[in-house]
């Protein structure tokens, strides 16, 4: 029994990384913008988390640092895609590389210039029943996102921006502002999750610290049919699978290659999308996702 409890708590402590990033990405995609930069933004947030911790010696300010780092990337993404209507996929790739490269690059520079720092975190996050506070934050975030998206006026604006921005524009909604805010807050959340990864879980920084978690978060948004509750459950599901796989691997009785488990979220997305479309259902994909909205063009 204690084994199961410790297993569950370790999953729940690991979960916020994927869950918060998924929530942030969900917000961005609901407004109609692809967040292909997710992996890079997470790395950027991870670096800023560690660096801010070094500067201020506080885990909470470190999280804030990651949040603001994500905001910066989000601001660039928003400007390029919303204001200038550049292709979202290519811009996403560009920002992914820039952000991830900058994170590693700045880390090298920081290590070169600041000789006495170790850039590790020695304190943990406060817990309740040995479950991280941040887990509860991610749970609240999920509920908040659901509430905002379905029950508030601003959430409606976000959804319209993702479904048919032209109609929203005719109705007098400021699509640009809506998308800007969604992208910036969404990417800020991704940065926050990266900071939690480096400061809360791994308690250090290294290149490839993100190791695909950003893309798993991206896949989970699709797998969860762009609904906050599904996405959160999907994040728990994949965190559990990863946890099981790690334990099996450690104890030596893993019966399938570890790479298969890593690939599982992506395979699951393709299968899920196929089945839903095959059955004629609604994938939940925002129809305007990926399409540029230009007010001047008729």
């Amino acid at each position, binding site marked *: 029994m204690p084994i199961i409890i410790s297993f569950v708590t370790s999953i729940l402590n690991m979960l916020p990384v994927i869950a918060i990033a998924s929530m942030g990405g969900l917000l961005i995609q609901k407004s109609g913008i692809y967040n292909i930069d997710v992996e890079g933004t997470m790395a950027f947030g991870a670096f800023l988390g560690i660096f801010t911790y070094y500067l201020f010696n506080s885990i909470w300010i470190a999280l804030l640092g990651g949040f603001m780092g994500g905001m910066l990337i989000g601001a660039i993404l928003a400007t390029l895609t919303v204001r200038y209507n550049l292709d979202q996929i290519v811009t996403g790739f560009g920002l992914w590389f820039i952000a991830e490269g900058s994170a*590693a690059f700045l880390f090298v520079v920081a290590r070169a210039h600041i000789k006495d720092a170790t850039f590790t975190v020695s304190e943990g996050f406060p817990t309740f029943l040995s479950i991280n506070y941040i887990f509860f934050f991610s749970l609240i975030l999920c509920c908040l996102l659901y509430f905002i998206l379905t029950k508030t006026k601003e959430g409606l604006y976000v959804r319209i921006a993702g479904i048919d921005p032209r109609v929203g524009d005719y109705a007098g909604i400021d699509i640009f502002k809506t998308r800007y805010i969604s992208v910036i807050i969404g990417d800020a959340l991704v940065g926050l999750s990266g900071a939690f990864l480096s400061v809360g879980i791994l308690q250090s920084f290294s290149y490839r610290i993100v190791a695909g978690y950003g893309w798993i978060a991206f896949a989970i948004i699709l797998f969860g049919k762009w609904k906050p509750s599904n996405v959160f459950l999907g994040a728990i599901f994949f965190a559990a699978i990863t946890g099981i796989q790690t334990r099996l691997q450690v104890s030596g009785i893993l019966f399938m290659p570890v790479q298969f488990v890593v690939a599982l979220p992506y395979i699951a997305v393709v299968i899920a999308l*196929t089945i839903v479309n095959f059955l004629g259902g609604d994938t939940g994909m925002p129809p305007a996702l990926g399409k540029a909205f230009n007010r001047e063009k008729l």
Partner: protein
Amino acid sequence: MNHLVKQQVNDAAIILLIIFFSILIPLIIISLSLNIDLKILFSRYFYSTIGTRDGLTAILVRFTPLLVTALALTVAFKSSVWNIGAEGQIIFGAIATLGICLHLNLHPIILILLSFIFAFFLGGMWGLIAGSLKALWNVNEIPVTLMLNFVAYELIRYLISSPWKSPEGLYPATIRIPFETRLPFIESPVNSSIIIAIALIPVIYLLINKTSLGFELRAVGFNRDIAHYQGINTKKTIMTCMIISGGLAALAGVLIVLGDVFRGEEGITGSYGFLAIVVVLISRNRAELIPLAAFLVASIIVGAIGLIVVGVPRRFTEILTGILFIAAITPKLLEKLK
């Protein structure tokens, strides 16, 4: 006629200028923050890539798979099928080549031919997943191709760590393919794979512009519904399109293994799958410009890698690649601002 030429020169000039400044400014930042002399950075980046023999051969080595992948993407993009799964398709080409060359004991030329055929098949099938999902059930191909990349990454990671792992060496990789199966060199690192790549240019150009399949591709790309009403079997066209695109990208993987890397290792795709998107975008949908754009992109990458020697951290290459992505699509921005 004169006006058209002037327009093209204008476009080319704008692109080159944007790229030039988007490299120069980071170089200036690097120079200031790391205390490296800007003149050294500048000369190292621009001169030693095109000016030296080693630099030129390095560019050509990268140019080859990049060109093939860009041609593969052109086929897809002409049909408005946004194939961002080229990375995965390249990997399947590499897997096919490694599977054949490392495990079969036949005459080398047969092995090479089999590699090409098997690679085209695997890459085509991998591309067909997204193609058929789009054609039959209208599944958006962007997430599908993107996700399948990561599945392919894990597959090759598994193969090089477990069943095909080489006993020597520190990091996971396969053993090298036998000497006889490697494509003959023309001038040290540059080998005959470049001939194959360049030979594909007219093939693809003819395919897209002079065949009925090419016409159908372009018609579906223009407007799928109109093409359908015209009597074109759009489902077949889209699926065929992805088979060709995936197969071609896989051929790039063959060329990488047979001509450059000679084995399977982590990062074998060298991001060519994503860089090819930039190449196609720079070429502004004109197939003739693709070789030039591929050469340009290859030079930029080689230049960035060359900076490592003078003390720039290697992660800078990644940042520069990212800036290149955005720089390649900004000309559209300038048109808007006019």
